[in-house]
């Protein structure tokens, strides 16, 4: 029976939404940067597929509708940026400077560190989209003819590392300005980092969202021009 049900989209959506809600409740109760609702959901899903002996590919196929929604959700970023138009207008120069510097730093540091740590050029190029949000990273990975799975892996390692480690950098560098803090979260750790930026203040979150938008553009242009 489970084999018959597990490939159905309603199975994938029901299980994912249910576990996501559960993970969100746990994450909110624990309220720790170490507990991320998305990672928690993914862990629970992996446990579930293992316990119920469901093939991971079947689960993936059953959630195609959810994955499809990443594109409209990415387009919706424009709406949230537009709602932050006054803040965007006020800080347009630091936003542009930050995202151009961020895109170039990301590109150069990935390529140099990749060489230093023995990654193939193909793997390093696949990691370049790691500081942009998933939907954009998937397309950029394809555009650069890299490995899209590695691009996504880079995106998530980066996002979660941002949630866990950026607060330490904030303390280390004593960054108290929400403009510097919010923008740097979005520039370095995209949407996942933005969830953490909102913990500091609404302004941090808004600026982090704005940064994701511009970082997507600057990283794409930098990658297309320099790679």
């Amino acid at each position: 029976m489970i084999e018959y049900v597990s490939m159905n989209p309603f199975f994938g959506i029901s299980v994912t939404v249910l576990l996501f809600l559960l993970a969100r409740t746990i994450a909110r109760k624990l309220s720790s940067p170490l507990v991320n609702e998305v990672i928690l959901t993914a862990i629970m899903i992996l446990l579930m597929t293992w316990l119920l002996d469901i093939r991971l590919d079947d689960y993936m196929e059953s959630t195609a509708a959810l994955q499809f929604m990443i594109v409209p959700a990415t387009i919706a970023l424009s709406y949230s940026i537009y709602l932050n138009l006054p803040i965007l207008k006020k800080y347009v120069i630091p936003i542009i400077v930050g995202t151009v510097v961020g895109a170039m730093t990301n590109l150069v540091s990935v390529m140099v560190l990749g060489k230093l740590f023995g990654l193939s050029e193909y793997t390093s190029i696949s990691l370049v989209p790691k500081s942009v949000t998933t939907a954009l990273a998937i397309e950029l990975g394809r555009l650069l003819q890299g490995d899209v799975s590695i691009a996504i892996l880079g995106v998530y390692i980066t996002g979660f590392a941002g949630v866990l480690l950026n607060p330490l950098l904030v303390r280390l560098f004593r960054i108290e300005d929400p403009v510097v803090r919010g923008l740097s979260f979005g520039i370095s750790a995209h949407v996942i980092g933005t969830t953490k930026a909102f913990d500091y203040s609404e302004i941090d979150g808004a600026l982090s969202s704005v940064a994701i938008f511009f970082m997507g553009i600057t990283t794409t242009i930098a990658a297309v021009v320099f790679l």
Partner: protein
Amino acid sequence: MKILPQILIYSLIALAGIAISFYAPIALPSSILSMVLLFLLLLLKVVKKERIKEVSTFLIQVMALFFVTPVVSMVKAAAEAGDQLIPIVIVSILAMLITFSVSALAIQITLRIMRSRQV
């Protein structure tokens, strides 16, 4: 609260992004183009924000849910990465820390210059 026209706007913008990426002289991802297109349409007030409010708010609120499956598939990619996994993790984390620090510094300097000029 008219949902269908909002879905239509989103769908058309996604489609326009695909069309523009097909004809663009340099290869650019269609979702980036769609995102920029919607932003321009909002700026030019061709699309009023009220006209896409409900669908946009919904998409933004539940966005994290859509990332669950990529995180699951990421585990598969990690398993397939073999001995490249550890360098991938190290490079990603170090590059993230460098990117955060360098851009934070650049923004701080920019703000300092801007604020000193205002005084």
